[in-house]
């Protein structure tokens, strides 16, 4: 049975809520009362429930299975966090309620800030960015403001070719030109390339560390030195913080700014694509330029500074990332996660995440091909060398995993590796679960090598849908339902 669209299910005369009738005059509406119908379908509550329950059953989820999406950190989402985020004191608190009526919320933000600065070894954090990419933008704009405050003109941002797409997009969005730094055959920043590109017009170097090949940048201290000597800033993409949280302080590596994806490292649920939250930790020299709002501890309580004029001495906020004060709902969840783990648990989680990835790597590298040597961090990278001449592509292999009950790994990223398959098991998987996953992938790989490739062509076959025609979708986009004539 195929679940129709709500527009196909609904009909006039039904409604899933009950309100008293009310008459409205036109006098207060400035003559702009809506005339026509909106076109919303009418459904009773039971129909709505069934529709969404049925839809949900077509989704894969971390609650139902291992979700090895490299670079996405699909870890366990504790329900305690969901429960606490729903306490009326948080969920039902207005962002412009008098600050005297929101002291608990401000205190919670301060406490979360303390955890973030302590874990990163950075002196400051700005909380308002609403997602990782938004945090990147915030970080780059902070850097931009610092440069402008010095009266400098720096137009280029250096980014390794293995970076997430958000890095170059962010730099461009912030008005910089992007210059790519090459990777070494070992999957790390090519120091020669970096040296050749660095210069007085460089505003920043953006680096993910551990990088998207799943490797720690060994030369990180040297890199930071180079950047700083050139008068540029070191931006770290915190997407892979889960590999090192509780073991390594980015501040010790010379980082000037780093966003933290609360929805990755600190487990706020991905929700099918958001909401996220991306607070940005800042070095001392960037701290004065952090955007509004600012949190200031005063005697008698905490004050939220919402406009430039009220900023403390020495602070020159570069602007505002969004209305209000950030993703409070996510802050509650993240703090609940942190308190639950404690410093020891966060360290253990990072170690387990790295251990799990290396275990997968060690268990599969004889049947699949790993492009780089040495231990990986929290994700294991394979390429498609081992698929050459089999007729099976990375895509085929990954889609066939669906028929085995697994979500595919990240494919074709990072771009520096051919036919990349990036596996991030996270610390949430038991050894039994990892062993089963490894056994399934080994079995599949051995089938490919034995030439039994039929099942890979056009996989998946057992999912709610077979492969979807993405070309048709984009050639003539259908972006909303339209009733048949």
């Amino acid at each position: 049975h195929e679940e129709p669209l709500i527009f196909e299910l609904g009909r006039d005369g039904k409604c899933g809520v009950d309100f008293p009738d009310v008459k409205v005059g036109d006098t207060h509406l400035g003559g702009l009362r809506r005339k026509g119908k909106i076109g919303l379908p009418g459904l009773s509550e039971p129909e709505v429930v069934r529709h969404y329950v049925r839809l949900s059953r077509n989704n894969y989820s971390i609650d139902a299975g291992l979700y090895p999406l490299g670079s996405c950190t699909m870890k366990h989402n504790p329900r305690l966090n969901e429960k606490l985020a729903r306490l009326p004191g948080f969920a039902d608190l207005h962002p412009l309620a008098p600050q005297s009526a929101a002291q608990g919320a401000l205190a919670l933000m301060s406490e979360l800030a303390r955890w973030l600065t302590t874990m990163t070894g950075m002196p400051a954090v700005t909380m308002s960015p609403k997602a990782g990419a938004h945090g990147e933008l915030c970080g780059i704009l902070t850097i931009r403001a610092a440069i402008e405050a010095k009266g400098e003109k720096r137009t280029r941002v250096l980014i390794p070719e293995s970076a997430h797409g958000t890095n170059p997009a962010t730099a461009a969005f912030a008005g910089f030109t992007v210059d790519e730094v090459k990777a070494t055959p070992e999957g790390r920043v090519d120091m020669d390339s970096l040296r050749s590109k660095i210069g007085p017009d460089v505003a920043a170097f953006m680096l993910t560390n551990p990088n998207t090949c799943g490797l720690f940048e060994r030369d990180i201290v040297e890199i930071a030195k180079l950047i700083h000597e050139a008068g540029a800033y070191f931006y770290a993409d915190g997407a892979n913080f889960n590999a090192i949280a509780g073991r390594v302080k980015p501040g010790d590596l010379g980082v000037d700014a780093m966003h933290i994806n609360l929805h990755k490292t600190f487990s706020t649920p991905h929700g099918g694509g958001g909401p996220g939250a991306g607070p940005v930790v800042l070095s001392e020299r960037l701290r004065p330029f952090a955007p509004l709002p600012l949190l200031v501890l005063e005697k008698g309580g905490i004050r939220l500074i919402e406009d430039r004029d009220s900023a403390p001495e020495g602070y020159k906020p570069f602007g505002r990332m969004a209305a209000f004060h950030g993703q409070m709902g996510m802050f509650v969840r993240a703090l609940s996660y942190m308190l639950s783990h404690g410093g020891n648990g966060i360290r253990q989680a990072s170690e387990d995440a790295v251990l799990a990835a290396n275990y997968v790597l060690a268990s599969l590298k004889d049947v699949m091909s790993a492009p780089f040597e040495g231990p990986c961090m929290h994700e294991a990278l394979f390429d498609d060398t081992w698929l050459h001449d089999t007729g099976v592509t990375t895509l085929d292999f990954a889609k066939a995993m669906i028929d085995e009950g697994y979500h595919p790994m990240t494919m074709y990223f990072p771009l520096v590796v051919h036919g990349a398959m990036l596996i991030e098991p996270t610390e949430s998987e038991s050894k039994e679960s990892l062993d089963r996953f490894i056994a399934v992938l080994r079995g599949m790989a051995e089938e490919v090598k034995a030439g039994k490739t039929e099942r890979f062509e056009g996989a998946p076959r057992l999912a709610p849908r077979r492969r979807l025609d993405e070309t048709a979708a984009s050639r003539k986009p259908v972006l909303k339902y339209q009733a048949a004539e």
Partner: protein
Amino acid sequence: MRYLPLTADDRAAMLAKIGVKDVDALFRDVPKSAQAPREAFDLPDAKGEIEVERILSRFAARNVAASDVPFFCGAGAYKHHVPATVDHLIQRSEFLTSYTPYQPEISQGTLQALFEFQTQVAALTGMEVANASLYDGSTATAEAVLMAMRVTKRPKAILSGGLHKQYIETVETVANLHGVIKRAMASPGRAEDLLPLIDDQTACVVVQSPDVFGLIRDLKPLADAAHAKGALLVVVVTEVVSLGLITPPGEQGADIVVAEGQSLGNGLNFGGPYVGLFAVREKFIRQMPGRLAGQTVDADGRRGFVLTLSTREQHIRRDKATSNICTNSGLCALAFSIHLSLLGEEGFTKLAAINHSRAVELADKLNAIPGVSVITPAFFNEFTIKLPRSAAEVVEELAMKGVLAGVPASRLGYADDLLIVAATETNTDEDIAAFVKALEEVL
């Protein structure tokens, strides 16, 4: 630790398989100087649920929840009743704990829901297409300005003084890098004349309706004037429920409509997470930011949905992308969509009517208090009153009496004697009476 499934034995066996002595060996690429021992972190150890719940409950108890008191704050975030069904459904594991639907074969639940969401948003705003959501209304407004600059290849954006102050600042922060932002002075209770500001360098005019003071303004003349100069009209709606009663921006000539969708399905959450709506004329779809769910067919010819037009996006286009956005506000969009599905045409228009009716009743009663005047001639569920003294002080005094009376305009940088007041379906007769009585007492 309850969330970590590996035992000491497991770890030992895994290390053996990897062929290293201990887990430190896996971190060997980290410079020694950056290897911080446990003691280097001034953080407490793990806590059980009971203790964590106690700590966070204490934070929560120090806030005044909107449901605790007669409550009239708005100015961009509104207290509405969300049916219990909504929260139940969005907590389904399959919605809550899934990733962005990059693998459509096993993500049809999210994708179909987003497609339905887009259809709903287009219908509400009176526009042709909508995306699958942005972070919130303010960032959506900034994206709209940037998009208008891309589309028109012009540098200037004109912002109405009735646009929420924090939206203005959000727009300026990013759009200043790409063009010139002209901000009109705020004129509470009046629709300022923006026409003289429009010239042939103008990419767009951005206007909010109802505006931050609650004023409903006629958008048609503005649309005509903008279009005459080749500029776009961007309309911002911070209270989507108003679209159940007011002529939608799309029917008044808007080219881009952005809105804050919090009112449907989502709680106040002290400002986030919210959900930004973004709707445009069809001709602009390839210039849109954010994700789009599109309809297609699978290999068996069955209807299905995918993320589409991703060549606009950062993970494909990198520095040439229309925006750097990666995450959207998927779960909030789902909540919005479920709430709107429950409401349907009848429920949504009734909800809007009740909101308006409550606000009219409140406005009439407040206006009758000596020294108080309602300065917003046309409004939906929010209006501004002029007080004989500082609104911020009055709000603090009313808070002591257990009434959260609204947002003082000064909080947003406007005049000291103005109070922005909202009423919704959640306000009872008793709430209104309590507000009126308390205000009479403090004046």
